[in-house]
């Protein structure tokens, strides 16, 4: 991959916004990184097209003040990230600069900071021993990063098999120290440190097998876990018009989902939302470890006012970090908000290059780019038999709330779960505004997953979920009839059917993300509530008039809601349940 050419140099020949034309004096490769010298400032740029001796480069920063004949240095490699201990809890920009190391309130052009700490000592424990034969991604040893076992691996770039010649003893080392010497198939010795680099646009393939996902990833959000479950290693996307709660939902997922590590790629979104993560995550307790949430989180922040070209890089940077941690046998949840901004960055550049546009002026290869990206997620069996996974959930911000626009359409083809946020539900404050019926999870139909549900939740779980969906569908159908025929134009039983669906909606589908208790419901609790709601469905009631029906069910909903708001199995919880039971007795058909 790396050739030791004398590095190519160039000179600026033209400038249109952040597209710069560079006259080069030697070979350049597509996607190669170069630095444009603007006085003392070095502007990072990526080659996106080459014609003759002219390279078209997209500059990751503002080109203000750049002049013709300014010099350019090429680096000989693509955009790479630095992989090693110290990534956790960091706030990076889209190019993996450590934002906290930058000086001043405002971002300075051309300021590049080290993503890791060169001097910090890590407690290294060897796993491999001399004589062991490993491939790329094979575990040499581990250090404790926060509380996580961070594996030090044979670099992903290495081809073939490597024999360990020597490895250091347990002890404290910096990331620059040599921790092992390996011999390649030609007998050449190579010194290894704890750090390696990888080009972000290429997928890391250091695993044995990528099976179909077969396990549930718990998120604590009822409408997802119960009605539209996502699998560990699965992909999902959340399209929704603005104001429907995309971000609140993503934050809820990142706080609650059952993952070893969370990577949040804030891609072209609001800075204050990232600040919310910066502020809250270091304070929030991680329910599963009792530590702070930030200890298992890494944030890639490229907010909407940060340079557009780096927006595209930011999602790839995030995915590459996820792949690195997956190779250590960890469960990663990767959230990208929003992939539409990334697509828009592609569009701006394609527009400046005067390429023939596709639909809505997006580049023609948009669907291919998106599906290629989603395909990097997944559950994997590593070469040493361990498992690791990346579950990827992206948000999409469809222009005008129109789900037929190119980014939504392309993503729909790539992602397996679809969480449709509905304006109507948001308007009537039915949060999370995930439409339980429009949304779907292809995983719910996987026999592997059905079996998992029967074993780990309830032997009849798949049937119960189907019934729950049916109840919602019937309720919606009846609602339409009542709308057309009027309250007294339909039999009283129709009202009963409608309200049984409303109970499902209010108690299972709706959830208060801002309530300390209700925000996250463990699976056990979800099962308990679903059973109660299904009990109501199976109960026959006697009503004289439709007014009685709505008054009664509102009381039922109110009691069950109090249960959702109470600590699980607390006194208050059982009190509400008792109240609920007496309500049922009151109206039950004898």
């Amino acid at each position: 991959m790396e050739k030791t050419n004398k590095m190519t140099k160039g000179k600026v020949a033209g400038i249109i916004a952040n597209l710069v034309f560079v006259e080069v004096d030697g070979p350049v490769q597509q996607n190669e990184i170069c630095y444009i010298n603007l006085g003392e400032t070095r502007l990072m740029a990526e080659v996106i097209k080459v014609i003759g001796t002219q390279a078209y480069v997209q500059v990751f920063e503002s080109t203000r003040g750049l002049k013709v004949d300014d010099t350019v240095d090429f680096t000989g490699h693509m955009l790479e990230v630095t992989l090693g201990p110290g990534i956790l809890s960091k706030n990076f920009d889209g190019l993996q600069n450590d934002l906290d190391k930058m000086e001043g309130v405002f971002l300075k052009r051309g300021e590049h900071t080290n993503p890791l700490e060169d001097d910090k000592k890590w407690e290294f424990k060897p796993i491999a021993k001399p004589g062991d034969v490993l491939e790329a991604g094979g575990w040499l040893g581990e250090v404790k990063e926060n509380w996580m076992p961070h594996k030090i691996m044979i670099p992903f770039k290495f081809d073939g098999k490597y024999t360990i010649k020597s490895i250091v003893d347990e002890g404290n080392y910096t990331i620059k120290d040599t921790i092992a010497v390996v011999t390649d198939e030609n007998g050449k010795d190579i010194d290894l440190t704890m750090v390696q680099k990888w080009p972000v646009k290429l997928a890391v393939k250091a695993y044995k097998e990528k099976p179909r996902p077969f396990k549930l990833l718990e998120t604590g959000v009822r409408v997802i876990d119960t009605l539209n479950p996502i699998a560990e290693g699965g992909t999902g996307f959340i399209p929704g018009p603005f104001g429907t709660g995309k971000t609140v939902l993503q934050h809820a997922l990142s706080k609650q989902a059952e993952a070893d590590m969370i990577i949040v790629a804030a891609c072209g979104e609001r800075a204050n939302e990232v600040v919310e993560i910066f502020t809250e995550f270091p304070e929030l307790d991680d329910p599963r470890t009792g530590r702070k949430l930030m200890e298992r989180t890494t944030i890639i922040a490229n907010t909407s006012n940060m340079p557009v070209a780096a927006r595209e890089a930011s999602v790839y940077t995030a995915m590459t970090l996820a792949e690195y941690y997956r190779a250590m046998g960890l469960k990663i949840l990767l959230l990208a908000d929003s992939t539409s901004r990334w697509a828009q960055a592609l569009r701006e550049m394609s527009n400046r290059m005067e390429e023939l546009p596709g639909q809505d002026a997006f580049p023609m290869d948009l669907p291919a780019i998106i599906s290629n990206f989603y395909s990097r997620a997944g559950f994997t069996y590593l070469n040493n038999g361990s498992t690791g996974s990346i579950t990827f959930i992206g948000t999409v911000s469809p222009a005008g709330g129109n789900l037929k626009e190119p980014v939504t359409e392309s993503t729909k083809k790539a992602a397996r779960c679809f969480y449709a946020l509905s304006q109507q539900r948001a308007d009537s404050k039915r949060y999370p505004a995930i439409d339980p019926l429009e949304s779907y999870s292809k995983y719910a139909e996987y026999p592997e997953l059905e079996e998992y549900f029967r074993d780990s939740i309830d032997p009849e779980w798949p049937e119960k979920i189907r019934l729950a969906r049916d109840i919602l569908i019937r309720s919606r159908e009846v609602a339409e009839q009542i709308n057309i025929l009027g309250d007294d134009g339909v039999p009283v039983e129709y009202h009963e059917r409608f309200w049984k669906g409303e109970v499902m909606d209010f108690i299972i589908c709706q959830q208060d993300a801002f309530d300390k208790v209700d925000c996250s419901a463990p699976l056990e609790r979800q099962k308990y509530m679903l059973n109660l709601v299904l009990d109501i469905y199976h109960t026959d009631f006697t009503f004289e008039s439709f007014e009685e029906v709505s008054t009664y069910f509102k009381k039922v909903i109110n009691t069950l809601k109090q249960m959702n708001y109470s600590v699980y199995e607390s006194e208050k919880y059982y009190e509400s349940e008792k109240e609920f039971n007496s309500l049922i007795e009151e109206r039950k058909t004898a």
Partner: protein
Amino acid sequence: METKAFQKIYTKITQITKATCSLKATGVGYEEMAIVNGRLAQVVKIMGDEVTLQIFSGTEGVPTNAEVVFLGRPPVLKVSDELSGRFFNAYGEPIDGGPEIEGEERQIGGPSVNPVRRKQPSEFIPTGIAGIDLNNALVTGQKIPFFADPDQPFNQVMANVALRADADKIILGGMGLTNDDYLYYKSVFDNAGALDRIISFVNTTENPPVERILVPDMALTAAEYFAVDKKQKVLVLLTDMTLYADALSIVSNRMDQIPSKDSMPGSLYSDLAKIYEKAVQFPDGGSITIIAVTTLSGGDITHAIPDNTGYITEGQLFLRKDTDIGKVIVDPFRSLSRLKQLVIGKKTRGDHPQVMNAAVRLYADAANAKTKLENGFDLTDYDERALRFAKDYSDKLLAIDVNIKVDQMLSTSWNLFAEHFEPAEVGIKQEFVDQYWPKNN
């Protein structure tokens, strides 16, 4: 914008379009300012030795032998305390007859704030308008537009909000403001005796449209001076951002760029984000809050301008005429303040979030009842009560002429609940019902 001695003067323009001209020149920096026969222009493209300039006031009457001088710097604004109380045009030149500003030259459209150096906004901005404070509380460091049809009184509401909000500086960026509206703002600020803390950058409909592009950057550069250097609370009013976006599309069209949705430039999202994201809360107390106006055509929010805006701003405020009470109200369904969660129930009373949600839900029930009524169906007793509640709620709380404190808004809400409903129908957490449900009812 004087020329300096020893500057090279070019006199050979090779190409002129409606908004741009090109000439051969060397040593020119990207985004550098130039003067073409006395008109301000900016470098928008460099190809080899050919430089393309965008002339802000248009190219009408520009000859091929026009004198072109490059100023060697991007557009700047001179900042100092002298800005207070003054009126400027889009170039930052005084238009109120007063003296030139002495101060440090700052480049406009400067770099973004490092997100890790921001502080989470947490200071409530009370406005007295219940449709805003109760349902859509504003917070310092927030950016929020009014989405309004041109016939709605958004300028009045915005002026009210600006004067009641407790801000050290109010900066008005007027784009395509009619002369009447400009004079309206001037007189309102004057009458309130607030002129000394107000700074205005105004491009009226009489000025060339492309000049508007500079207005938000000018206003925000001044805002950053006061928020960063002086640690002040700055409120920036931008009206009308739709006309700003229209100016962008004129430029991109004349530069032969491929238009995307609604003939807007493909970079519209990034262009708007660069402006709105200047809203910030700094840790040391300074802040920039942006309240903007985006006019809609026939209430259509799917148009590219309001659509992109909605994805950038932290919510939006909708005004609507409620024919039942004959007043303009802040629409509780379509309005949203994304940052309200940071202050309601925290900086205000604990029952605030639940009261807000319950009232809006009951108001939605009333809207359903209304549909039923319009379709000729009988109403239930509950429907009737919901309708009566909605009318009172609209009149006593949502109308824009309301001016009361938040605690009063909450007690008004509880009274309305008790007047029309049973506690179970309201669906608020029991502890709040026990505490606040009016006892004598």
